[in-house]
């Protein structure tokens, strides 16, 4: 439980660095697997060498991604029997209605806009991590 993987799907290296910094800052020590685009994320989740879904604590999913965008990743994830129960938290710059509605419709578990202020950003990351790794009871494997 303690070592469940956090799958971070984020193409922007700055954001990747800031998110990892926030994890570090809040001493969340779970392994973080990074996918730099949607295709890579799908490969990691449903590819031949995919992680066991039960091993994944949650997916932190950006929406605007090269190759396959975040919402498409979510759709395929939910469409797949094996991966459809994996908790997904959308963490993105946008809070456009379109994204919010589509995200929830496709079955995201949570939607968080990235705050500009790093303190708030770091706080948001902390809360998400704690919640999905500790407070939330994951689906049975």
């Amino acid at each position, binding site marked *: 439980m303690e070592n469940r993987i956090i799958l971070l799907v984020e193409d922007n290296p*700055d*954001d990747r660095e800031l998110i990892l*910094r926030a994890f570090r800052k809040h001493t969340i020590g779970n392994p973080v697997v990074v996918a730099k685009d949607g295709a890579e994320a799908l490969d990691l989740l449903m590819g031949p060498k995919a992680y066991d879904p039960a091993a994944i604590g949650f997916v932190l999913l950006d929406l*605007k991604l090269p190759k396959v965008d975040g919402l498409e990743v979510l759709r395929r994830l939910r469409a797949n029997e094996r991966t459809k129960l994996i908790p997904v938290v959308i963490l993105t*710059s946008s809070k456009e209605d379109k994204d919010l509605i589509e995200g929830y419709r496709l079955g995201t578990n949570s939607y968080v806009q990235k*705050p*500009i202020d*790093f303190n708030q950003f770091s706080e948001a990351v902390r809360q998400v991590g704690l919640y999905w790794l500790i407070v939330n009871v994951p689906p049975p494997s």
Partner: protein
Amino acid sequence: MRRGQVSWRCEGRSLPASARVLCRALLLIGVLLFPAPRPAHAESLRVGIYQNPPKVFVDGHGSPRGIFVDVLDAIARREGWTIEYVHGTWPEHIGRLQRHEIDLLVDVSYTKERAEQFSLSHVPVLESWCDIFSRRGTRVESLRDLDGKRIAVLEGSVQEHYLRDEVRANFGIDFTLLLFPDYPGSVEAVKSGEADLLVATRFFSFSPDRPEGIVPAHVIFRPDNVYFAFPRGTGADLIAAIDRHLASMKNDQDSPYYRSLRRWLATQPEPMLPARVKAALAAGTVLLAVIGLFAFVLRRQVKAKTRELTRSYERLQATYAALRDSENKYRTLFEGSADGIFLMTDRFTDCNAQACRLWKCRREEIVGHSPAEFSPPLQPDGRPSDAAARERIERALAGEPQCFYWQHRAKDGALMDCEVSLNAVEISGRTFLLATVRDVSARKRAERKLTEANRALTARSMCSRALVCAMEEGALLEEVCRIVVDDCGYRMAWVGFAEPAPEKAVRPVAWAGAGGNALGTLRIRWGDDEHSRGPTAAAIRTGAPSIARDISVDPRFARPGEEAGGRVRVSVIGLPLLEGGVAFGALSIIAAAPDSFRAEEVQLLSELASDLAYGVIALRTRAARRRAQEELEEYRDRLEEMVRERTAQLAESNRRLEIANRELEAFSYSASHDLRAPLRSMDGFSQALLEDYGDALDEQARDYLGRIRASSRNMAELIDDLLSLSRVSRSEMRVEEVDLSAAAESILTTLARREPGRSVRWAVAPGATARCDPRLIRIVLDNLIGNAWKFTSKVPEARIEFGTAREGGRAAFFVRDNGAGFDMEYAGKLFNPFQRLHAAGDFPGTGIGLAIVQRIIHRHGGTVRAEGKVNGGAMFLFTL
């Protein structure tokens, strides 16, 4: 011919003196044997007599004698009257009659003047005429021979008046009249050479006052009847009694009347007794012995002569009777004729009873007058009656019998259509015209009525056909006018349309017949001026047919400077062309004869006009419908074209809009994601530097990092606002009834809760609702109330009010505060995006709020405006 004049004259001359003496003796005996009985209830009549034998006179013994005396005595006997004869001269009697000094005057000819002055009996006593008497050998053949002569006449007699007043004037001759109170005076004047001629009635031939040497010229003129005259106001009983007896006696050949006529008119004038007696006595004394000797021979001769004379007298009596029978026969034919019969030259000399009935006047009022006096000034064909009559008379006198139609006018003014024939006849060596006049008015009227009804009927039926075939208004009107004139025989027809006020002109649009081209110059109008008096104008004004039966005498046609008599005699009818009871024009028809357009013809022509009006309206409606349809089709074609163009334009602009929207969407989306990421990096890594290397940095470096972070956040806020603005434009509208009061209350409550330190008093008008998008209106109120909250933050007693008002007739809502306010000079800029009127340090905000408010209000079709004053508060008022 006057009755028996020739035979009486012959008789009077040839009867011997002995027979006369015999008759007188017999009469004397009769009078002595049968004296007049005294009337039972005596009515005394004073009768004026004068010396005019044999009609009336006083004989040598002072006894009244003559025809009138015989007649009056006979009547008095029958009625039981007493008669007192008053002797005098004619002028004296006229005076007495006027003063009622006598009850009756004998031997009075009819004149208008006398008929007015006195009462005249109605049954004529004698038929009389005037004659000219002169010394034997004086040549007198006609009235013209009176020229330059000295003429003796009875003073106050009809002869005097006639010669003085009429002959002089009518014959263009001049003469001197010598007036005498009695005939002996006149005779003396002629004998002595003081006078050339004597004019008296025909009875003077039989008068003993006439010496042998003074003879009648047989120039017959002024025939008349002789009556009894009574003072004005005499009882009708007396006159009626005299008339009754006279009429009865005139019907009986053996009555005292005829006996008297035979007696006085068959005898020679009584010899001047005293002279003759003296001569006889002298001769007797001288020849006494001779008479004794030849007494026997003489007696035998006398006997033989007497027998011869008696036979001659009997023969003459038989001739007289035959003549009388013949005369009676012709008189019956003459008087009994159903035609008026006249004997005339250029004037009437005689006429029958039917003529009097025809022209409703007495014979005396006809005789001596000309035919033109019994005609209207103009004949129906327009010729002056006197000229036309003269021409006919001259041609008839020249031996060419005339038969023609003529319009006569009776004494009472009634016009009658007559058939007249004129034939020349010879009477007593003189040429007369025998004229027969037959009143054919009734036949003419019937013929005319039929003709008029026929032409109107033809007009109506032919016009009906024209109406059915009509395609175009102008052609229809022309055709109707043409039919009325060419096919139906009217003189002219035209149609005029009524122009509206103020001109009220009648514009001729179609015509046919004589004078149509002059219509335009008449400038007919239908108002109230002198151009609006004719039937056409009247028909338009009143909406009913108007008729002028003779425009030559109709004052409505009199125009300034034009003599009525100079116009042709025609009838005109104006028939209104009606639409909904109002005339839009008139059909006017002119008939060539006066007095046309009687009831039946008017009825038919009115129906024609009604048909025509209906036809015109129908054609106009049809034309208007066709025009409207054409316009509609054209309009429809254009509309279709327009719709196609507009649709294409719309499709194009829609396509562009879609592209723009997609681009905007893409831009917003991209901005939302990509523009914020760098800001996050700037803030995040600045923070990382402070956290990780804070100790290595001096105060200034940390301050710079702080500024980078602040700018990043500021930039992020601007981006968020921009995106909100764009979202307001792009989001879909969802309109429903929204409780604005509740929304405002909720917003204020939230604000108060968020900033509990603020002390703000607010007032929200209850029940303010509007149909709008609830989410968008919430943004409006958030902004406006949020602003009010924000800009009152430096006021000790902040007040915020939400209420309703009217703006340009529409419901309006306002948010008012007593905060910082603004300078009205910049009011127009308030709603521009990112426009701020306050330093960011004083009041936070990017200046996007009012831009969003305006965009939302505009999307609702409303308006928004602001009022304010620096440090005096602000008010924002909007409609939806």
